[in-house]
């Protein structure tokens, strides 16, 4: 597969070289001509697909975290918000990614209509599906972390008359950080798992699509290639988890919470 990748890169380089030559020669004949640059259209290789998958999972995960952390803090601080949101959370948490996907696809197709797409629809669909599925652990853990801020520390904050913002920043956030990271790690694990399924169905050019294509084309090497893909998927999942652990070690004050 490494050979394939290199062969494809060589082809791509050759393509760009041909294009440059063509444009140069045409510009020499007609200086007023606006050159049209076309991108290479060859099939993505396994390594390109890994890259796409990583980008997709990270954007989905970041989007989810950006929603889940503030919302979790809010829910943790206000018991009314907790009572209002909890049934919704419990309702949506167990929904399978495969159920979200058609819904997300429809919404994205309907809403994201543009002639000059910045990103592919399949990317958006996979990303939103990932976000929707990996939102919940972070949300729940942040909320629990915030709720379990020690009463003594809250009293300190009250005696100091910290306002709401600095209360959250100085007391709540650091206290809840270990719990939050537990949630984030769970979330990233789920995100990676969901991503493969989402890519298969959304045809986002990532690892999921690789597996699906190999399954569909039924070559004699397909079985072996899928097995490689499975192992690579596992390895990347493991590395992502390690990455989160390193981040947690760097950021969290309570080193005893970062053992496993």
């Amino acid at each position, binding site marked *: 597969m490494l050979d394939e990748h290199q062969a494809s890169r060589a082809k791509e380089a050759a393509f760009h070289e041909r294009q440059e030559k063509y444009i140069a020669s045409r510009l020499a004949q007609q200086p007023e001509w606006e050159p049209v640059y076309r991108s290479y259209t060859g099939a993505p290789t396994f390594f390109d697909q890994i890259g796409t998958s990583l980008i997709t999972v990270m954007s989905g995960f970041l989007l989810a975290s950006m929603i889940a952390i503030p919302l979790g803090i809010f829910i943790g601080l206000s018991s009314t918000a907790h009572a209002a949101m909890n049934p919704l959370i419990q309702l949506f948490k167990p929904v399978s990614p495969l159920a979200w996907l058609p819904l997300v696809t429809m919404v994205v197709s309907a809403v994201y209509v543009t002639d000059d797409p910045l990103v592919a629809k399949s990317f958006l669909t996979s990303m939103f599906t990932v976000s929707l599925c990996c939102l919940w652990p972070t949300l729940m853990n942040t909320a629990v972390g915030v709720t379990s801020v*020690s*009463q*003594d*520390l*809250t*009293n*300190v904050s*009250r*005696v*100091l*008359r*910290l306002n709401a913002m*600095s209360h959250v920043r*100085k*007391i709540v956030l*650091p206290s809840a950080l270990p719990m939050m990271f537990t949630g984030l790690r769970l979330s990233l694990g789920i995100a990676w798992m969901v991503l493969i399924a989402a890519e298969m169905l959304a045809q986002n050019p990532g690892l999921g699509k690789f597996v699906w294509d190999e399954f569909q084309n039924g070559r004699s090497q397909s079985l072996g290639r899928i097995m490689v893909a499975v192992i690579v998927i596992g390895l990347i999942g493991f590395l992502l988890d390690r990455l989160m652990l390193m981040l947690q070690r760097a950021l969290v*004050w*309570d080193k005893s919470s970062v053992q496993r």
Partner: protein
Amino acid sequence: MKALLELSNVGMKFDTPKGQFEALKDVNLKIESGEFVSLIGHSGCGKSTVLNIVAGLLQATDGGVILDKQEVTEPGPERAVVFQNHSLLPWLSAFENVELAVKQVFKKTKSKAEIRDWVAHNLELVHMAHAMHKKPDEISGGMKQRVGIARALAMQPQVLLMDEPFGALDALTRAHLQDSLMEIHAQLGTTVIMITHDVDEAVLLSDRIVMMTNGPSATIGEILDVKLPRPRDRLALADDPTFVRCRQQVLQFLYEKQRKVEPMPKRNSANTEGVRKRA
């Protein structure tokens, strides 16, 4: 002389599943500036509730508290609290813990350098200058409590409230901290209200000992004036007749007049009650 702090007819009722529980009733107390007052009583008698009401962490259901002509309605730095279990923020160093308080209180009146000096000064006052950049996890229980006291003192409170500040410490560390506290009290003349279980501690440190009756509907039983000259020395006092008599009186109150009736009631401490009831 007009009292600095005045509690008048303070009463506290908690709503429980079994109906109302009256923890405190008709607590009247006047404290003058610079006085050191101890609250003593069996656990569950509402000592901590009294302190939390003065701190503003709890709202009295009857009566009220007036500090320097103003009614106490919410917590504030002019009534700094030293909590029983230090309550330092574990992710900040000793210095940063005190700094957080100082920044909050003196944000507008002190410059950055002044804030730094003031923090360092307060840590020196409690003999913690050598470990000011250590995290709470890296220092001993006694040192944590010292930092807690430094944090409270750094707010320049009108009244310093201490909720069993030395309760969780071993006897030797406790003696050290009591000496430090006496030193600081002599130096700064802060008004202090301290809750304690320890009769010796109460007699050694206080100008007055407020003894509380058992709950429910606890109130002030007796107030004992400790007329011992300051500075006090724990060794010299051990067989001082006044010290022994004061100690005797407190013990009599606690073990004869207000014998704790077993079995212990289910709510074993007003402290946890106060903690559970948050605003």
